[in-house]
């Protein structure tokens, strides 16, 4: 077969030289993501002692290490659920056009710019024992002693809400504005009330977007590291799995254990994402009626 004929046959199936444009991007992802990941998985099976699964056994038999998974999930799941659940009603009220919509959106998105350190410093200053929050509550007589809200679970939780909410809100707002508003108007002419329109029309159409948003917010919250150290209790109640991985790899120099923890972390995260996406497929999947 001649060279030209082969090229024509390939072109019919959609393979031609234009695909070469993908090569630099693919090369980067393969070299910087797939190869290191495979290398890490390989490394995790070569611990100094304990055979092939030694690093994994070391992780799961040590309660101090094993419990980090529960700690992380205990922080990340409620934070992600709260971020998504709070975004839905706010975004729902912000559909359509009104004066100051862009301004309000910008204000709600500002926390993205705060960064972990300013959020951490702010939480320590504001919610600390002598901070404005406790001071205000004490001066109106709600409490007698300062409430402890930093250097424990709540500090990290607030930090996750502050940094995660803007992302969840932006995504939900954009999914909601992708739903054709005439569907709801049609329901209204058929006599559906406010709640019925929301629960029978909008919510089912929004479900796939909710699932995606939840996954992305969960990934953000699940990889919590700096705020768990700065506003949390990194040796105790907020020792999350990324701290464990970091300690193993860079303070104990046990690279196999560090890689094993990273792999475990990835697996746990993918399991949660898979469960959520599995639930999503039970709902309506199809066009949301958006134009464009």
């Amino acid at each position, binding site marked *: 077969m001649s060279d030209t004929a082969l090229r024509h046959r390939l072109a019919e199936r959609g393979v031609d030289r234009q695909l070469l444009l993908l090569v630099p991007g693919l090369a980067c992802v393969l070299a910087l993501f797939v190869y290191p990941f495979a290398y890490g998985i390989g490394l995790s099976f070569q611990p100094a002692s304990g055979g092939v699964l030694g690093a994994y056994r070391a992780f799961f038999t040590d309660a101090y290490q094993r419990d980090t998974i529960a700690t992380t999930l205990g922080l990340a799941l409620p934070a992600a659920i709260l971020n998504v659940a709070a975004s839905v009603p706010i975004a729902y009220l912000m559909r359509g056009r009104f004066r100051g919509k862009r301004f309000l959106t910008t204000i709600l998105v500002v926390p993205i710019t705060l*960064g972990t350190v300013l959020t951490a410093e702010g939480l320590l200053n504001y919610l600390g024992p*002598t901070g404005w929050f406790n001071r205000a509550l004490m001066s109106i007589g709600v409490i007698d002693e300062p409430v402890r809200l930093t250097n424990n679970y709540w500090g990290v939780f607030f930090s996750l809400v502050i940094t995660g909410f803007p992302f969840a809100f932006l*995504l939900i707002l954009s999914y909601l504005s992708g739903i054709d508003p005439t569907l709801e108007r049609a329901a209204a002419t058929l006599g559906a009330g406010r709640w019925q329109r929301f629960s029978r029309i909008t919510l089912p159409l929004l479900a796939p977007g909710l699932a995606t948003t939840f996954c992305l917010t969960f990934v953000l919250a699940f990889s919590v590291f700096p705020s768990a150290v700065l506003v949390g209790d990194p040796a105790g109640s907020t020792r999350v799995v990324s701290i464990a991985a970091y300690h193993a790899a860079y303070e104990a120099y046990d690279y196999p254990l560090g890689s094993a923890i990273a792999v475990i972390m990835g697996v746990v995260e993918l399991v949660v994402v898979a469960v959520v996406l599995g639930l999503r497929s039970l709902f309506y999947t199809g066009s949301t009626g958006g134009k464009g």
Partner: protein
Amino acid sequence: MRRLTVGAWLVWGAVAFFLINLAALIGAVVVNSVGRRWFDTWLPQGWTTHWYASAWKEFGLLQVLVVTLEVALLVVAISVLVGVPASYVLARRSFPGRRLVYLLFLLPILMPPITYGIPLATVLYKYGFAGHLAGVVLANLVPSIPFVILTMTPFIEQIDQSVERAARMCGARTWQIFARILAPLLVPGILAASILVLVRTVGMFELTFLTAGPDSQTLVVALYYSMSAAGIRAQQSVDAMAVLYTSSMLVLLVAALRFVNPTQLVARVKDEPD
């Protein structure tokens, strides 16, 4: 004006509560960064700009800012150059294995940075990249290239294919189509993607933290070190730096929002013209 229902009042009340606390949180840091001594009172005992000066001097802030800028610009330039062509192919063509390629580009965004950051840093140390600017840039490319690809896809889909076909009829080659037809039409999209990648890179903690050496710390990482090594640096000085960081990020974000309508990032629906 529509009448608001009870539910709407509750929601707006919650938003207001959140925003008030947020403002107080930011305010506490700003006040602390210009305060003299602040222990058990509502406001500090005096005011000073001394902490900003000391943050700038003691901290070598200039060098940190230069590094941050270098890393961010290199990451933006490389990820746009690599990402836009790939995004073009993924948006326009169907070919065997397209879904697999798409999944490969999606995975780095779906995984927490620490999970691939630790093995990536190990590999980068093995080849001697880590600890230098090159390592930081390479590590930050991992989420940035997929991000450019995902952000650019809707912009590319918007361009009428007949424009390209007409150019091809007139004898333009692929690179000419890119340089003379697509690039000018894609400028808004490229700007949007660049600014978003810039914001993400400047704010990216984990990957930079794992791969940076003493001379290649970006602002976030430097801030983290100065805060976690408590007692070495005055807290007000850290606050002053955090305020500088946030104000520069804010400028970037507001600039980004001028180019991208944030509500159209996922589903592109035109606002109703009424």
